[in-house]
């Protein structure tokens, strides 16, 4: 059975202007990701992993090259079309959670469904299920300020998966967490990957989570150094 590619990147170059010159964050990156993959973009700070993740998510644009995500050419889409792709097909997990501080867990998780105009009865069902997945039933009415970092990140995961996106992008999801919480988060994400058809892309330099990844792409100075598939992850 052939697997559909969710991401197709060819000869991607990303440059940032710095003063009168420019800094090359990504150069000649070629990458394909199939549906359901559990991939880590790893490398030291400044290697270009977050930039690559942002370009895949349509939050940033490429300088050269082609980026196809979910059969859509990102560089040819308008801001609104990219927003629509993100809204319908993508979930984001950020290092600093980026939860809306005035919203409760329930309201934060519900937000992507509201943006997608999902009916209230469906919303209740999906939000409840997403919160169950991450095990935050007892914190449903808590606000981010009343929760630990691990709980906030679990809320962010629930928010990222509640609308069952085709692609989930996570930027350093465990960077602010201790070892125990990091493993808990990765277990949840790994389980979701197994149960859903969602593809996961992590940008990370956290050694603790490497054992969960099924494919590791090493980046350094904006180039892919190696791309390794792991048949049996350490923490599978």
């Amino acid at each position, binding site marked *: 059975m052939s697997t559909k590619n969710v991401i197709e990147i060819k000869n991607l170059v990303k440059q940032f202007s710095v003063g009168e010159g420019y800094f090359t964050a990504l150069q000649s990156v070629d990458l394909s990701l199939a549906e359901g993959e559990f991939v880590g973009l790893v490398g030291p700070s400044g290697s270009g992993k977050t930039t690559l993740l*942002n370009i895949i998510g349509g*939050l*940033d644009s490429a300088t050269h090259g082609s980026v196809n995500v979910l059969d859509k050419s990102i560089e040819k889409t308008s801001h609104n079309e990219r927003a629509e792709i993100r809204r319908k097909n993508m979930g984001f997990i950020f290092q600093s959670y980026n939860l809306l501080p005035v919203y409760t867990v329930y309201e934060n998780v519900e*937000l992507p469904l509201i943006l997608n105009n999902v009916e209230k009865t469906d919303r209740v069902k999906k939000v409840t299920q997403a919160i169950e997945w991450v095990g935050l039933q007892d914190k449903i009415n808590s606000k981010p300020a009343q929760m630990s970092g691990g709980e906030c990140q679990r809320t962010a995961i629930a928010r990222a998966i509640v609308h069952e996106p085709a692609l989930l992008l996570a930027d350093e999801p465990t960077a602010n967490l201790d070892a125990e919480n990091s493993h808990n988060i990765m277990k949840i994400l790994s389980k979701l990957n197994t149960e859903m058809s969602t593809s996961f892309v992590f940008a990370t330099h956290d050694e603790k989570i490497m054992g969960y990844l099924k494919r590791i792409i090493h980046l350094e100075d904006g180039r892919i150094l190696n791309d390794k598939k792991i048949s049996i992850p350490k923490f599978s």
Partner: protein
Amino acid sequence: MMLFNIAIKNLFGAKLRTSLNVFVTSVSLFLVIFVSGMYDGMRKHAKNITIETEIAGGTYWHPEYDPMDPRTFEYSHSVMPTKIKRLIDQKYAFGVLVSQASIYPNGRIMPAIMKGITPGQTIVNIPTDVLEQDDDITIPVLIGSEMAKNSNLKIGDSFTIRWLDADRTYDADEGTIVHIMETENFKLDQGHIWIPLSKAQSMLALENQATYVTYAKGLDVIQDTGDWIHHDVDYMIRDMEALIKADEPGAQVMYSILLALAAMGIFNAQILSIFRRGKEIGTLMALGMTRSRVVALFTLEGALNALLASAMALILFGPILFYFGENGIPLPIDYAEMGILVAKKLVPVYSLSLIISTMVLISIIVLIVSYIPSRKISRMKPTDALRGKAAV
């Protein structure tokens, strides 16, 4: 509807932020209405005082009478036309006989305008009932507090009054202060002594004569008044109206300054609040909210903020506005001493147009200061917004 729900959730979720923004906006709204109301009140109150204490429904003047020229007083009197006299008999009007006099309080000599007025009249707000004849007093005299201060006279003090009668003979007699009135109309006070009309007529040998007649509000104008001239309220307050009219650009400038100050307060609070939410805007964009929707959301929040501020201004400051509108604010200085017709207390006047225009303008300011920063942030790269890089 979706944006409205999110905006409501954002506003009521961020209780402190919303309360502060709404409070700042409502205080601005209150201050603009209150200070402008005071200014309008100051201008209109002067007019009202003049009407209440001097003009009532209007006046009929002897043709020679010119209140600005005391030399005319000697000739500006006659027997009142029949129809006007009938009004007086029916107590719908009262006559005033004006003449020049000299008074000698405490051995000093002071020029005065002596006005005979019907005791007990209720048409203008002057306490003339105190002039009801007391047989023990030769000439009962009513003066204002300023006149009392200048002449150093107190209630019960007697002093000599000298006047020129119709036979061109100087006469003199003793007047006694029966009351010192507090009036906001300095024109009734400074240099004036008020005595009973009948007494003035007999002193001046001008029986049944008067200089002018003031009639009650709501009466029709009498056509057949001989050579006496009718002056309506508009004519009597024309100078004041001209002053108010001339002051309109000044009032508009003051209103604009107030509004600009209020706008700065709102601008600071709103800008700070929105730029602090740069990361939130980035998150919403990452979750798939379009730029236009982000701007619409924050502008809608601004509109709701303005609405809440109007409600808060009504609840918190409405009673204060109402209280001062009813009772006025006492002024620390008596401007009458400076010859300025300003009330001893200021009663703010809040016109409907002032309230509505202020609410609309403040709402527009809130919308603009919500729209501009949110538009600026939404035009940033989402990655910059996510990092909270938004800056004013």
